[in-house]
């Protein structure tokens, strides 16, 4: 079984909360650059950070990240 992360909804969830990338990064203990890289799909976060993002937005990991089984 192989999975691929196709994208995520971090930017949408963040803008709904009217937060900046820097504020979200500070809340999760990472840099603004890292949030930007996640939002643009250039960086795939660790499992811990993915769960952190999901918990922060009161969502499941599957609701935050678009995953496809191949």
């Amino acid at each position: 079984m192989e999975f691929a992360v196709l994208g995520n909804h971090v930017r949408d969830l963040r803008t709904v909360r009217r937060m900046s990338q820097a504020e979200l990064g500070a809340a999760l203990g990472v840099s603004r650059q890292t949030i930007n890289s996640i939002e643009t799909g250039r960086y795939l976060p660790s499992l811990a950070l993915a769960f952190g993002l999901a918990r922060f937005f009161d969502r499941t990991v599957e609701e935050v990240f678009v995953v496809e089984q191949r």
Partner: protein
Amino acid sequence: MSNRDRNTRTFWLTPICGVVVGAAFAVGSWVGGHPASGFVFLVVMVVFSGALVVVSRRSETVRGLLDRRDERISSIDLRATAASGLVVIATVIGAAVVEMARGHSGEPYSWLGALAGLCYLLAVLIQRIRG
């Protein structure tokens, strides 16, 4: 020890190492009879370490490299370190080959290459055991 204390200690580790390396250069040069160049080495390393601390207040990347809180920057650091290691190993191998072509034994480059290979195998073994 709290996370804050740990982060503070980690933050200062690289600048302190820089000063210690500078001091080691200075002592080595002084013992070798070149105290002036040793002093220059020390000043360069102290200035470099101080610049790291100052720049970290403005740059997220430098701060991340120092405090290691950001997993992406830590990952970049790891890959950059690996790339630097590869370049050094390739240079050492090249230097050993040149030394051998000149009719010498290839030392000390051959020993450095062997050390690098041994360290790599040991690191793979340790990482494999740790999971």
